[in-house]
């Protein structure tokens, strides 16, 4: 592999990695938000009893 091919490969890997980091990071944040809303609902139910 010449230097150009190596650099091209590294940039493609970087682009794909960045894409997955952004998407999975957002999914994880959404999961935390979901759990926090669920906890709020449970606390409300507990307090109303």
């Amino acid at each position, binding site marked *: 592999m010449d230097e150009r*091919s190596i650099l*091209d*490969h590294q*940039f493609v890997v970087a*682009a794909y990695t960045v*894409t997955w980091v952004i998407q999975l990071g957002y999914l994880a944040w959404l999961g935390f938000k*979901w759990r926090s809303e669920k906890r709020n*609902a449970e606390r409300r139910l507990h307090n109303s009893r």
Partner: protein
Amino acid sequence: MKKLALGLFPVITVLLMVWGYHQAIYVAPDDALQGYIFRIIYYHVPSASVAFLFFAISLIGSIGYLAFRRSNPARALAADAWALAGAEVGVVFCTVVLTTGPLWGRRAWGIWWTWDARLTTTLVLWLIYVSYLLLRRFAAGPQMQTLAAVLGIFGALDVPIVYMSNRWWRTQHPAPVFGGDADSGMKDPTMVHALLWNMLAWFCWGMLVLFLRYHVERRHQQYAAQEAEEALAGAD
């Protein structure tokens, strides 16, 4: 049946993502001019298409909120949740476009960024929807959703400008892959198939995340409504 479909959809999406990756990296050939770096297109273009679609969902949700806010508040709240979900997931995909694009540009053009029409209008689109999300996060009071809906509608006006920018003006950005003139687009059917598979995969992924975000917002709305009811009951 509904539960089965809900359970199957994420599995199908993951399989599509794996298949799309396989097509992009192992099946599609190198581009004759750009070589291996061209493979960024299989994540870059689908992300842009899905972002546009979700900004359109946000537009419809915003119009729905403004149309129903007095006549049918329950329906207006559902429309508002779609508007927020569309805008937020759209921003995530637009962020992917704005990070993979410069990585591609650095190798293809020798520069990370240039202020040409396509890149600038895309950045403006991202900034408009980020300001929409900041407005929703930090503004309070009954007018917040109305203001956000108006901003969401104005933001969506930039989508056709972004789409048409490399047709209306001379840009550093390449000609459109689909719907361009005879010289533009992909010539190799294997490349077209790889792009279409990745488009389908990212569309399914986007829908999955969009439904999740919608349900989180609906739960939040229910919680806020109950809290308001209790506060009113306490005041009485």
